């Protein structure tokens, strides 16, 4: 099993958020999670990425034959996990290019691969950026600083395509994107998709799933997954909302 979440319960500040959540993802699969505001989708994404504010009450997570809780945040990233944030953090004064360069090299180091030099990296970054319709001038700016909502999302996907993860978690990457950007971004995701990597896509809109075809759609309500199935579930939700799942 590639990612196996078993009976996961998580709380933050005395509030139980995830309640006995189960989810299995195999290599090469695309999973989508839909659910009402506040049901715990971002919490799940953050717990997977290793954010330390949460208290894990119960459960097990296995990722690529590792107990995920044995890995710290950066080790998870180096092992191939990537979270595209719902709200990417602005980091003034940290230039995008060297930032991503260090990111890719810390991953390569763990994999015992040779570090990528400045020149090759600049080339790689430029070509990936132009694939995603990102202006080269933007690469001179500070990480997320002053970016528009849509620019931030695009930049998350740029990072993803540079780091080429085994498991990409996209937390509402479609929110805030205009229709053209949505096409470009989903196109970027589809290009990256192989039989060896997997995606966990959190979204509120069926639209995204028209572009990225999920193998499974899960409905999350009140901290656990209440229904799983194929794309037809997304259409159901689009039509009737979450009422009947609650």
């Amino acid at each position, binding site marked *: 099993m590639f990612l196996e979440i078993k009976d996961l319960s998580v709380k933050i500040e005395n509030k139980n958020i995830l309640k006995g959540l189960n989810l299995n993802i195999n290599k090469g699969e695309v999973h989508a999670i839909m659910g009402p505001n506040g049901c715990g989708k971002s919490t799940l994404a953050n717990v997977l990425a290793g954010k*330390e504010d949460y208290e894990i009450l119960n459960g097990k997570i296995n990722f690529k034959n590792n107990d995920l809780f044995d890995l710290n945040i950066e080790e998870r990233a180096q092992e191939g996990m*990537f979270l595209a*944030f719902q709200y*990417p*953090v602005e980091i003034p*004064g*940290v230039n995008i290019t060297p*930032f991503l360069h260090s990111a890719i090299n*810390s991953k390569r180091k763990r994999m015992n691969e040779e570090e990528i030099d400045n020149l090759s990296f600049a080339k790689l970054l430029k070509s990936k950026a132009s694939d995603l319709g990102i202006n080269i001038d933007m690469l001179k700016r500070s990480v997320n600083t002053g970016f528009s909502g849509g620019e931030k999302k695009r930049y998350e996907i740029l990072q993803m395509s540079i*780091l080429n993860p085994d498991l990409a978690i996209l937390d509402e990457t479609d929110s805030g994107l205009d229709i053209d950007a949505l096409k470009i971004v989903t196109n970027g995701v589809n290009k990256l998709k192989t039989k060896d990597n997997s995606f966990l896509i959190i979204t509120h809109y069926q639209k995204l799933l028209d572009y990225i075809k999920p193998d499974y759609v899960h409905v999350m309500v009140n901290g656990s997954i209440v229904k799983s199935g194929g794309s037809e579930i997304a259409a159901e939700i689009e039509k009737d909302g979450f009422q009947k799942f609650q």
Partner: protein
Amino acid sequence: MNIQDNYLKNKKNIFFTENENVENHREILIKIFENDRFDKKNNESLKNVNLKNFLDFNYKYLVPEETSVINNNNDNSYSIVSVNGQCTSFKDDKIEITKILDEDYNDFSKNDTIEKNDHFVNLNSLFLNSGFKIIIKKNNNIKIKISNIITDDDLTIFQKNNYICEEGSSLNLIEEYENKNNSTSNILNVIKLEKNSQLNHFLIQDNAPNHNLIITTHSSCKKDSIYNQKVYNFSEGYVRNFHYSELIETNSEADLQGIFFLKDNNTSNNKTFVKHLAENCKSNQVYKGILNDRSKATYFSNTHVDQVAQKTEGYQLSKGILLSDNASYFSKPELKIYADDVKCSHGSTIGPIDENAIFYIRSRGMSKIAATKILISSFINEELSSINDEQMAEIIQKKLVRYLSKVK
């Protein structure tokens, strides 16, 4: 030993004891010491100060055997090695360097911008044993680098320097304080900027743990002149940076900036004070601090706008990153405005490093330490990238790397 006895005992190697005006002034200072209750709460000059060490110190001074050197590298650049606060005399058509004179002392003693109960400045006047005066002549554009050297352990240097930038002149002044021995330097710089002159003053402070540096600057700016000061404090010993500026004629500017990097038990006290005394002047006071371990800092910033000083622009900012729960940074901005047409602001943000940013960076594969270092560097990125002297930028970068290497 009390201050007065200490003074009388060491009178023979203190400057200007023959001058009646100086002696009269010193009598007043001794009275101030006698009558002060050393109320730490209400005296900014006493914050974080060990009163016993400060009032009861062993005075020791040595006149340097080898007088300091001046190298005329090329037409416009000078290197000075100041030894125990002294500097050899020098004169060419661009600059003139002499010993400090009693008339300079008397001139400064009349100034009332620095509080009467700033005891460190008072000690400086009382025990004065060194100092020099540099005049930059009219319309010259020069660069001076001063290395401040102290020859022996246990020395107490009380030094007053005067800088005069004559009309239309421009000076880039880089001062290095890198003392390794167990000694104390109490330095007062008095700077006069004449019409249309500019001084860019860089102070690099990187002393060993046993060295105390108390440095005070008083600058005054005439019409169209600019005083820029940038302090970089990497010292492991105590440093006090108190810097005062008076904008006495129209269209003048003062920019007082500092960055301090503290760790272990180190303490740094900082103060900037700008007095707007004429129309259309600008001032900027920005201090940033990075504090690790159990280090402590204070920063008092003050903008005083006189009632004639219309169209003043005054800006104050204090920022700090606390890398440890045991570090503390006390900052107090103050504004006193007596004119009505002014633009003034102040801000202060001090806190631990942004955990969300750390999470974001780590989620891209960088370690926690790497993330912390990235954020510290970015915190001062603006200041570092604006250093336009290449040699300076390199020096500061090296010291920053050394500081970061100790961050765990």
